[in-house]
């Protein structure tokens, strides 16, 4: 089946880095040398043997904050992306298969949602609703699902007119089979490539929201929030803000390396066995 030697090097790098982030997120309380909110030293201490990445604007250990931050960042981004993809693609496929008024209604509704800039929409909704993880994930997921909806509907409309889908309809298959067994496997390639992109957008969107103070609330912080906390240090030549920023970049690249590799495998029509 999966032969490690045959995984291309970029994909391997991506897998290792992504796995590191995920492991750090899962085992945060055990790995982190200090607590999340624990003040252990002076403000903005430089990197040292005791504090590998130095300390932040309140004197908390930056490495520990990074590890706990990975947990929150990944948790929210993964759930929001999962929500946007399952919602967007299922509705998109359904719109393509059912057509008619169902398609029109849904598509116009999505147009309506998309006509309002995402960030402004999120700001308004989040400032009205109580700020907690559930609302945050729901808002991010639903807003993002509009993009996924449009993509998957466009892909599915093309697949829906293929002879093999007609053959399935003639056989009497119901819509569930047609969506999940005929259309989904053939729409996977564009969806996977979009997934890599959307996940990163979710991380960045969360960072933006936190930066504006509407995302994760202190003392917890995601990486975007940590950039905000430490941004003033940049003026004094302190790199603390750049470390979470670099982590976001590293995550973005490694996830997309993996997504590209998965894409290569899903585009094969020979079951990936070459």
């Amino acid at each position, binding site marked *: 089946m999966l032969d490690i030697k*045959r995984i291309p090097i970029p994909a391997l790098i991506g897998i290792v880095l992504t796995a590191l982030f995920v492991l750090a997120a899962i085992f945060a309380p055990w790995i982190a040398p200090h607590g999340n909110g624990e003040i252990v030293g002076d403000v903005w201490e430089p990197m040292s043997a005791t504090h590998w990445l130095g300390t932040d604007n309140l004197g908390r250990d930056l490495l520990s904050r990074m590890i706990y931050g990975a947990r929150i960042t990944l948790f929210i981004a993964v759930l929001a992306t999962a929500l946007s993809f399952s919602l967007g693609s299922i509705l998109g496929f359904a719109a393509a298969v059912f057509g008619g008024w169902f398609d029109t209604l849904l598509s116009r509704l999505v147009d309506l949602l998309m006509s309002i800039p995402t960030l402004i929409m999120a700001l308004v909704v989040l400032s009205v609703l109580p700020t907690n993880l559930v609302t945050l994930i729901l808002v991010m997921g639903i807003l993002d699902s509009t993009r996924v909806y449009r993509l998957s509907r466009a892909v599915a409309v093309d697949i829906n007119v293929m002879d093999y889908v007609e053959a399935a309809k003639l056989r009497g298959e119901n819509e569930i089979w047609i969506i999940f*067994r005929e259309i989904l496997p*053939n729409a996977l390639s564009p969806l996977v490539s979009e997934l890599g992109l959307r996940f990163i957008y979710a991380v960045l969107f969360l960072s933006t929201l936190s930066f504006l103070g509407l995302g994760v609330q202190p003392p917890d912080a995601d990486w975007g929030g940590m950039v905000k906390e430490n941004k003033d240090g940049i003026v004094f030549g302190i790199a603390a803000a750049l470390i979470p920023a670099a982590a976001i970049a590293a995550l973005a690249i490694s996830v997309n390396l993996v997504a590209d590799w998965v894409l290569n495998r899903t585009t094969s029509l020979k079951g990936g066995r070459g």
Partner: protein
Amino acid sequence: MADSKAKSGLLLDIRNLRIEATVYPPGEAPKNIVLVHDVSLTLEKGKVLGLIGESGAGKSTIGLSSMGYGRGGVRITGGEVILNGRDILKGGKEGFRKLRGREVCYVAQSAAAAFNPAHRLMDQVVEATLLHGTATRAEAEKRAVGLFRKLSLPNPETIGERFPHQVSGGQLQRVMTAMALCSEPDLIVFDEPTTALDVTTQIDVLAAIKDAIRDTHVAALYITHDLAVVAQVSDEIMVLRHGRLVEWGGTRQIIKEPRQEYTNALVSVHEIEHQEQQPGTTPFLSVKNVTAAYGRSHIKVLKNVSVDIYPGQTLAVVGESGSGKSTLARAITGLLPPEEGTVTFDGRPLANKLADRPKEDLRQLQMIYQMADVAMNPRQTVGTIIGRPLEFYFGIRGRERDKRVADLLDKIEMGKGFIDRYPAELSGGQKQRVCIARSLAAKPKLIICDEVTSALDPLVAHGILELLLELQKEESVAYLFITHDLATVKSIADSIAVMYRGEVVRYGAKSKVLTPPFDAYTDLLLSSVPEMEIGWLEKAIKGRRMASAGN
């Protein structure tokens, strides 16, 4: 350009041509494969050489090498292509640019895809002539109009002002021939110019091409997989297989006295003996006075069509494109609910709409499509594709299902090893066989075959027809066989319905329909089927009583 060789009449001399391509199998090192193995040919001025063989035989690759072109990363790695006395492979890019469109021109298979839809026909026809600067625009246009007239296109003076979508497929193919002839080349490469056309249109295009070649004294390489077609236009025929030369000789010798076994198989391919069955007493499916249209259009695609199908027998529906054959199938399957009329099955009316039919009715009517590649989900294995009807209609799962799938694979003469393969890993004929197995798995009473052999090479199509007949005997399943190929009809049908512009113009037992006196349309259809006989084309054109609808 004139030198000693040209004077002696030799135009093209290909010597030991070797063409290779690099393939990149995933997970393995890239490797070279040889597509054409040291093929040599010569062509004299004004002569036509037919290149014939199945898909993958290398006919197009050899044809294109005469203009130094390799399609999609294909490389000419050995041999010489001597045109007008010089090796064009040594001329480099600049040499090719001077050569293409001036000395050698190309006529593609699908004219519809080869024309730029955004430009008028005339601009595209004279483009090469103007680029090479051999004539002024006025001269070139005058020449083009003359060619349009010679190719018997309607309104030769004004047809050039039209856009590609404003003329029919057969006309577009002739405009493309005019385009190739316009720059007065020495050689034209015809790459399956009539394969995508109806029989009735094909004959017009064929006659036009033949006349144009004769009058302009141009030499031609005529590439096709249809031996009967190539016999009409070419002086010599070269049979190719797997990139190697099988046989090369005069047209008469190849079709009358083939020396190689493979050529013999190609020549005798259409002959299947099929004893006509007498219709039973009661048909199990009858279509009564069905009228249908797409959308809310007033143009009726089917007009008052009535046909009967008897158990275990084959009804062939014949006609040109646009005659309503496939629409009839869509009306029977419920994909296009008829506006008027009924379809009766086993003595009770079938629901008009697909959604209203019970599973049992759906099971009894199965369908096989023309393009097997798109009729199977490319992400499902053969096992899933064939096994699904078993699960769906009979609830057979697990090991029992696998056993039945293996039985079905056996029936279509494919081994158990195919069960885990994906459609992309099958050949064209195998794909169509899997589609047949899928429809058989439902144990239907009727299988609708929509042009099932049209996309296949003659030898492969022959195998499929034999399989269908064999299965009919074993399973006593009835076929509704839609085709435009009368040779196929002769070998498989028990009764025939001839359709023309949405109406059934002739209907009855095969022997009755194919016995004179014919009505004008059936006569046209019958006389348009190319026969493997020299001089057939002229005879057929002379004997026609009406023009085809496609023109």
